[in-house]
Protein backbone atom coordinates (compact mmCIF):
# COMPACT_ATOMS: atom_id res chain seq x y z
CA UNK A 1 0.00 0.00 0.00
CA UNK A 2 1.35 3.44 -0.85
CA UNK A 3 2.10 5.68 2.09
CA UNK A 4 -0.37 8.57 1.95
CA UNK A 5 -1.53 10.89 4.69
CA UNK A 6 -5.07 9.69 5.34
CA UNK A 7 -7.51 12.05 7.02
CA UNK A 8 -11.18 12.80 6.45
CA UNK A 9 -13.08 10.15 8.42
CA UNK A 10 -16.31 12.03 9.02
CA UNK A 11 -17.01 11.08 12.62
CA UNK A 12 -15.11 13.82 14.45
CA UNK A 13 -18.16 15.94 15.27
CA UNK A 14 -20.37 13.01 16.28
CA UNK A 15 -17.89 11.70 18.83
CA UNK A 16 -17.02 15.13 20.16
CA UNK A 17 -20.72 15.89 20.67
CA UNK A 18 -21.31 12.48 22.26
CA UNK A 19 -18.49 13.12 24.71
CA UNK A 20 -20.07 16.43 25.77
CA UNK A 21 -23.58 15.02 26.10
CA UNK A 22 -22.45 11.97 28.09
CA UNK A 23 -20.43 14.29 30.35
CA UNK A 24 -23.58 16.29 31.15
CA UNK A 25 -25.50 13.08 31.86
CA UNK A 26 -22.75 11.82 34.20
CA UNK A 27 -22.55 15.15 36.00
CA UNK A 28 -26.34 15.10 36.54
CA UNK A 29 -26.22 11.54 37.86
CA UNK A 30 -23.39 12.47 40.23
CA UNK A 31 -25.56 15.28 41.56
CA UNK A 32 -28.55 12.93 42.04
CA UNK A 33 -26.29 10.43 43.80
CA UNK A 34 -24.82 13.11 46.08
CA UNK A 35 -28.30 14.30 47.03
CA UNK A 36 -29.43 10.72 47.71
CA UNK A 37 -26.41 10.07 49.91
CA UNK A 38 -26.88 13.36 51.76
CA UNK A 39 -30.49 12.39 52.49
CA UNK A 40 -29.24 9.24 54.17
CA UNK A 41 -29.87 6.63 51.46
CA UNK A 42 -26.52 5.04 52.18
CA UNK A 43 -27.24 4.59 55.87
CA UNK A 44 -27.91 0.85 55.77
CA UNK A 45 -27.87 -1.95 53.18
CA UNK A 46 -31.67 -2.11 53.06
CA UNK A 47 -32.03 1.60 52.40
CA UNK A 48 -29.27 1.46 49.81
CA UNK A 49 -30.96 -1.46 48.05
CA UNK A 50 -34.30 0.32 48.15
CA UNK A 51 -32.74 3.31 46.46
CA UNK A 52 -30.84 1.40 43.78
CA UNK A 53 -33.64 -1.03 42.89
CA UNK A 54 -36.34 1.64 42.53
CA UNK A 55 -37.46 1.96 38.88
CA UNK A 56 -36.43 5.58 38.17
CA UNK A 57 -33.06 5.14 39.92
CA UNK A 58 -32.41 1.93 38.01
CA UNK A 59 -33.13 3.74 34.75
CA UNK A 60 -30.85 6.64 35.77
CA UNK A 61 -28.02 4.25 36.71
CA UNK A 62 -28.46 2.39 33.42
CA UNK A 63 -28.20 5.65 31.44
CA UNK A 64 -25.20 6.65 33.55
CA UNK A 65 -23.32 3.41 32.87
CA UNK A 66 -23.99 3.57 29.14
CA UNK A 67 -22.81 7.22 29.14
CA UNK A 68 -19.71 6.31 31.11
CA UNK A 69 -18.75 3.56 28.67
CA UNK A 70 -19.45 5.70 25.62
CA UNK A 71 -17.46 8.59 27.12
CA UNK A 72 -14.59 6.28 28.00
CA UNK A 73 -14.62 4.81 24.49
CA UNK A 74 -14.06 8.23 22.89
CA UNK A 75 -11.37 9.15 25.45
CA UNK A 76 -9.45 5.89 25.36
CA UNK A 77 -9.64 5.76 21.57
CA UNK A 78 -8.15 9.28 21.51
CA UNK A 79 -5.19 7.98 23.53
CA UNK A 80 -4.63 5.07 21.13
CA UNK A 81 -4.87 7.48 18.20
CA UNK A 82 -2.23 9.76 19.71
CA UNK A 83 0.32 7.19 20.77
CA UNK A 84 -0.16 3.98 18.74
CA UNK A 85 0.71 4.48 15.09
CA UNK A 86 0.70 1.00 13.44
CA UNK A 87 -2.80 0.46 12.03
CA UNK A 88 -3.06 -3.25 12.90
CA UNK A 89 -2.04 -2.76 16.52
CA UNK A 90 -4.32 0.23 16.86
CA UNK A 91 -7.31 -1.65 15.46
CA UNK A 92 -6.60 -4.52 17.86
CA UNK A 93 -6.49 -2.10 20.81
CA UNK A 94 -9.73 -0.47 19.67
CA UNK A 95 -11.45 -3.85 19.55
CA UNK A 96 -10.08 -4.86 22.97
CA UNK A 97 -11.23 -1.54 24.45
CA UNK A 98 -14.72 -2.03 22.98
CA UNK A 99 -14.94 -5.59 24.30
CA UNK A 100 -13.82 -4.48 27.76
CA UNK A 101 -16.28 -1.57 27.87
CA UNK A 102 -19.21 -3.66 26.63
CA UNK A 103 -18.23 -6.30 29.18
CA UNK A 104 -18.16 -3.76 32.00
CA UNK A 105 -21.56 -2.40 30.95
CA UNK A 106 -23.07 -5.91 30.88
CA UNK A 107 -21.55 -6.76 34.25
CA UNK A 108 -22.90 -3.54 35.76
CA UNK A 109 -26.38 -4.29 34.41
CA UNK A 110 -26.23 -7.77 35.91
CA UNK A 111 -25.35 -6.33 39.34
CA UNK A 112 -28.01 -3.66 39.05
CA UNK A 113 -30.83 -6.05 38.14
CA UNK A 114 -29.83 -8.58 40.76
CA UNK A 115 -30.64 -6.15 43.57
Amino acid at each position, binding site marked *: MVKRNLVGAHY*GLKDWLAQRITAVIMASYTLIMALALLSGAGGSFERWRALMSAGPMRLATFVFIVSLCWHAWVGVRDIWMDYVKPTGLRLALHVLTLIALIGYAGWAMQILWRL
Partner: protein
Amino acid sequence: MTTRTLHFKIYRYDPDQDRKPYLQDISVEVDSNDRKLLDALVKLKAKDDSIAFRRSCREGVCGSDAMNINGKNGLACLTDLASFPEGKPIVLRPLPGLPVIRDLIVDMTQFFKQYHSIKPYLINDDPPPERERLQSPEEREELNGLYECILCACCSTSCPSFWWNPDKFVGPAGLLAAYRFIADTRDQATNERLDNLEDPYRLFRCHTIMNCVDVCPKGLNPTKAIGKIKAMMVQRAI
Protein backbone atom coordinates in the same frame (compact mmCIF):
# COMPACT_ATOMS: atom_id res chain seq x y z
CA MET B 1 25.03 54.34 30.83
CA THR B 2 24.23 51.43 33.11
CA THR B 3 25.27 48.03 31.92
CA ARG B 4 24.19 44.61 33.06
CA THR B 5 25.46 41.13 32.31
CA LEU B 6 22.97 38.59 31.09
CA HIS B 7 23.68 34.89 31.34
CA PHE B 8 22.26 32.55 28.75
CA LYS B 9 21.91 28.85 28.26
CA ILE B 10 21.41 28.38 24.55
CA TYR B 11 20.43 25.19 22.75
CA ARG B 12 23.15 24.45 20.23
CA TYR B 13 22.98 21.83 17.52
CA ASP B 14 24.77 21.71 14.21
CA PRO B 15 23.87 18.38 12.58
CA ASP B 16 27.06 18.52 10.47
CA GLN B 17 29.31 18.65 13.53
CA ASP B 18 27.46 17.67 16.72
CA ARG B 19 26.42 14.15 17.56
CA LYS B 20 23.68 15.49 19.81
CA PRO B 21 22.35 18.85 20.99
CA TYR B 22 23.75 20.60 24.08
CA LEU B 23 23.15 23.77 26.10
CA GLN B 24 25.90 26.39 25.78
CA ASP B 25 26.59 28.78 28.67
CA ILE B 26 27.31 32.24 27.38
CA SER B 27 26.93 35.74 28.77
CA VAL B 28 26.72 39.19 27.24
CA GLU B 29 26.82 42.81 28.43
CA VAL B 30 23.71 44.83 27.68
CA ASP B 31 23.09 48.52 28.29
CA SER B 32 19.97 50.59 28.78
CA ASN B 33 19.46 50.88 25.00
CA ASP B 34 18.95 47.13 24.82
CA ARG B 35 15.32 46.60 25.68
CA LYS B 36 14.26 43.35 24.07
CA LEU B 37 15.65 39.84 24.08
CA LEU B 38 16.43 40.18 20.38
CA ASP B 39 18.80 43.10 21.17
CA ALA B 40 20.75 40.81 23.48
CA LEU B 41 20.73 38.02 20.89
CA VAL B 42 22.16 40.36 18.25
CA LYS B 43 24.97 41.21 20.69
CA LEU B 44 25.49 37.51 21.39
CA LYS B 45 25.75 36.86 17.67
CA ALA B 46 28.48 39.53 17.48
CA LYS B 47 30.32 37.73 20.25
CA ASP B 48 29.89 34.20 18.84
CA ASP B 49 28.85 34.30 15.22
CA SER B 50 28.22 30.55 15.07
CA ILE B 51 24.89 30.96 16.95
CA ALA B 52 22.07 30.62 14.44
CA PHE B 53 18.61 32.14 14.81
CA ARG B 54 16.04 33.73 12.49
CA ARG B 55 15.12 37.39 12.76
CA SER B 56 13.84 40.04 10.43
CA CYS B 57 11.54 42.93 11.28
CA ARG B 58 12.48 43.17 15.00
CA GLU B 59 9.03 44.52 15.91
CA GLY B 60 6.66 41.57 16.20
CA VAL B 61 5.28 41.66 12.67
CA CYS B 62 7.23 39.04 10.72
CA GLY B 63 7.17 36.24 13.27
CA SER B 64 10.69 35.03 12.41
CA ASP B 65 12.28 35.05 15.85
CA ALA B 66 9.84 32.73 17.62
CA MET B 67 11.66 30.52 20.12
CA ASN B 68 11.22 28.80 23.45
CA ILE B 69 12.22 31.33 26.12
CA ASN B 70 12.60 29.93 29.64
CA GLY B 71 10.21 27.14 28.73
CA LYS B 72 7.55 29.28 27.09
CA ASN B 73 7.23 30.06 23.39
CA GLY B 74 7.46 33.71 22.41
CA LEU B 75 9.01 36.25 20.09
CA ALA B 76 12.48 37.46 21.08
CA CYS B 77 11.72 40.91 19.69
CA LEU B 78 8.66 41.36 21.94
CA THR B 79 10.15 39.91 25.12
CA ASP B 80 11.35 42.60 27.54
CA LEU B 81 14.82 42.07 28.98
CA ALA B 82 13.49 43.66 32.16
CA SER B 83 11.07 40.74 32.54
CA PHE B 84 13.92 38.32 33.31
CA PRO B 85 14.81 37.88 36.97
CA GLU B 86 18.33 38.98 38.00
CA GLY B 87 21.01 36.34 38.30
CA LYS B 88 19.09 33.48 36.70
CA PRO B 89 20.29 32.30 33.29
CA ILE B 90 17.90 32.76 30.37
CA VAL B 91 17.30 29.41 28.71
CA LEU B 92 16.68 29.59 24.96
CA ARG B 93 15.60 26.57 22.95
CA PRO B 94 14.12 26.13 19.48
CA LEU B 95 10.33 25.85 19.12
CA PRO B 96 9.38 22.39 20.41
CA GLY B 97 7.99 19.67 18.18
CA LEU B 98 9.53 20.72 14.88
CA PRO B 99 12.77 19.30 13.41
CA VAL B 100 15.80 21.45 14.26
CA ILE B 101 17.82 22.65 11.28
CA ARG B 102 20.45 24.31 13.43
CA ASP B 103 20.53 25.89 16.91
CA LEU B 104 17.33 27.96 17.27
CA ILE B 105 16.22 27.46 13.68
CA VAL B 106 13.47 24.90 13.05
CA ASP B 107 12.05 23.40 9.88
CA MET B 108 8.57 24.94 9.52
CA THR B 109 7.53 22.81 6.50
CA GLN B 110 4.95 20.78 8.43
CA PHE B 111 3.49 23.91 10.01
CA PHE B 112 3.00 25.61 6.65
CA LYS B 113 1.67 22.41 5.07
CA GLN B 114 -1.13 22.45 7.62
CA TYR B 115 -1.71 26.15 7.03
CA HIS B 116 -2.02 25.60 3.27
CA SER B 117 -4.34 22.62 3.81
CA ILE B 118 -7.14 24.90 4.99
CA LYS B 119 -6.95 26.99 1.77
CA PRO B 120 -6.04 30.31 3.37
CA TYR B 121 -7.54 32.51 0.66
CA LEU B 122 -10.96 33.82 -0.24
CA ILE B 123 -12.98 31.47 -2.44
CA ASN B 124 -15.67 33.31 -4.38
CA ASP B 125 -16.77 32.26 -7.85
CA ASP B 126 -18.85 35.37 -8.59
CA PRO B 127 -17.25 37.80 -11.03
CA PRO B 128 -15.47 40.49 -9.02
CA PRO B 129 -17.50 43.70 -8.77
CA GLU B 130 -16.30 47.02 -10.20
CA ARG B 131 -14.69 48.15 -6.95
CA GLU B 132 -14.73 45.68 -4.05
CA ARG B 133 -16.74 42.95 -2.33
CA LEU B 134 -18.60 44.80 0.40
CA GLN B 135 -19.18 43.77 4.02
CA SER B 136 -21.21 45.47 6.71
CA PRO B 137 -19.23 46.83 9.69
CA GLU B 138 -20.67 43.98 11.81
CA GLU B 139 -19.55 41.36 9.31
CA ARG B 140 -16.08 42.90 9.20
CA GLU B 141 -15.98 43.01 13.01
CA GLU B 142 -16.09 39.19 13.13
CA LEU B 143 -12.69 39.03 11.41
CA ASN B 144 -10.97 40.98 14.20
CA GLY B 145 -8.75 38.77 16.29
CA LEU B 146 -8.37 36.38 13.35
CA TYR B 147 -6.59 38.17 10.51
CA GLU B 148 -3.80 39.53 12.75
CA CYS B 149 -2.01 36.16 12.99
CA ILE B 150 1.64 36.44 11.85
CA LEU B 151 2.22 32.66 11.56
CA CYS B 152 5.14 32.65 13.99
CA ALA B 153 4.14 29.08 15.08
CA CYS B 154 4.40 29.85 18.81
CA CYS B 155 0.90 28.43 19.33
CA SER B 156 1.04 25.28 17.23
CA THR B 157 4.43 24.27 18.64
CA SER B 158 3.17 24.64 22.21
CA CYS B 159 0.23 22.32 21.52
CA PRO B 160 0.70 18.66 22.55
CA SER B 161 -1.89 17.54 20.00
CA PHE B 162 0.29 19.13 17.31
CA TRP B 163 3.40 17.45 18.74
CA TRP B 164 1.79 13.99 18.51
CA ASN B 165 0.08 14.44 15.14
CA PRO B 166 1.72 17.30 13.20
CA ASP B 167 0.86 15.56 9.93
CA LYS B 168 -2.85 15.23 10.72
CA PHE B 169 -3.90 17.88 13.24
CA VAL B 170 -4.14 21.31 11.62
CA GLY B 171 -2.97 23.06 14.80
CA PRO B 172 -4.17 26.29 16.40
CA ALA B 173 -2.59 28.65 13.84
CA GLY B 174 -4.12 26.81 10.89
CA LEU B 175 -7.50 26.54 12.59
CA LEU B 176 -7.52 30.24 13.46
CA ALA B 177 -6.89 30.95 9.77
CA ALA B 178 -9.57 28.41 8.82
CA TYR B 179 -12.14 30.24 10.94
CA ARG B 180 -10.97 33.57 9.49
CA PHE B 181 -12.27 32.35 6.08
CA ILE B 182 -15.28 30.45 7.43
CA ALA B 183 -16.35 33.67 9.18
CA ASP B 184 -15.78 35.82 6.10
CA THR B 185 -19.17 36.66 4.50
CA ARG B 186 -17.45 37.16 1.13
CA ASP B 187 -16.30 33.53 1.07
CA GLN B 188 -18.52 30.95 -0.65
CA ALA B 189 -16.79 27.72 0.41
CA THR B 190 -18.05 27.49 4.00
CA ASN B 191 -19.45 23.97 3.57
CA GLU B 192 -16.32 22.65 1.88
CA ARG B 193 -14.21 24.23 4.61
CA LEU B 194 -16.27 22.57 7.35
CA ASP B 195 -16.14 19.24 5.46
CA ASN B 196 -12.36 19.58 5.27
CA LEU B 197 -12.14 19.84 9.06
CA GLU B 198 -14.79 17.32 10.12
CA ASP B 199 -12.40 14.58 11.02
CA PRO B 200 -11.24 13.09 14.33
CA TYR B 201 -7.76 14.48 13.67
CA ARG B 202 -7.86 17.73 11.73
CA LEU B 203 -10.01 19.74 14.14
CA PHE B 204 -11.07 17.46 16.96
CA ARG B 205 -7.57 16.73 18.27
CA CYS B 206 -7.99 20.09 20.02
CA HIS B 207 -8.86 19.29 23.64
CA THR B 208 -9.12 22.95 24.66
CA ILE B 209 -6.06 23.08 26.92
CA MET B 210 -5.42 26.64 25.68
CA ASN B 211 -1.61 26.55 25.52
CA CYS B 212 -2.06 28.45 22.25
CA VAL B 213 -3.87 31.32 23.96
CA ASP B 214 -1.24 31.40 26.69
CA VAL B 215 1.67 31.93 24.31
CA CYS B 216 0.28 33.93 21.39
CA PRO B 217 2.51 37.04 21.15
CA LYS B 218 -0.26 38.91 19.36
CA GLY B 219 -2.81 38.17 22.08
CA LEU B 220 -5.07 36.15 19.78
CA ASN B 221 -7.39 33.35 20.87
CA PRO B 222 -7.26 30.28 18.60
CA THR B 223 -9.25 28.23 21.14
CA LYS B 224 -12.20 30.60 20.78
CA ALA B 225 -12.03 30.33 16.99
CA ILE B 226 -11.87 26.53 17.22
CA GLY B 227 -14.93 26.60 19.51
CA LYS B 228 -16.79 28.66 16.91
CA ILE B 229 -15.91 26.17 14.17
CA LYS B 230 -17.23 23.34 16.36
CA ALA B 231 -20.40 25.32 17.08
CA MET B 232 -20.95 25.87 13.34
CA MET B 233 -20.52 22.15 12.71
CA VAL B 234 -23.11 21.35 15.37
CA GLN B 235 -25.44 23.93 13.87
CA ARG B 236 -24.97 22.37 10.45
CA ALA B 237 -25.50 18.82 11.71
CA ILE B 238 -28.67 19.18 13.78
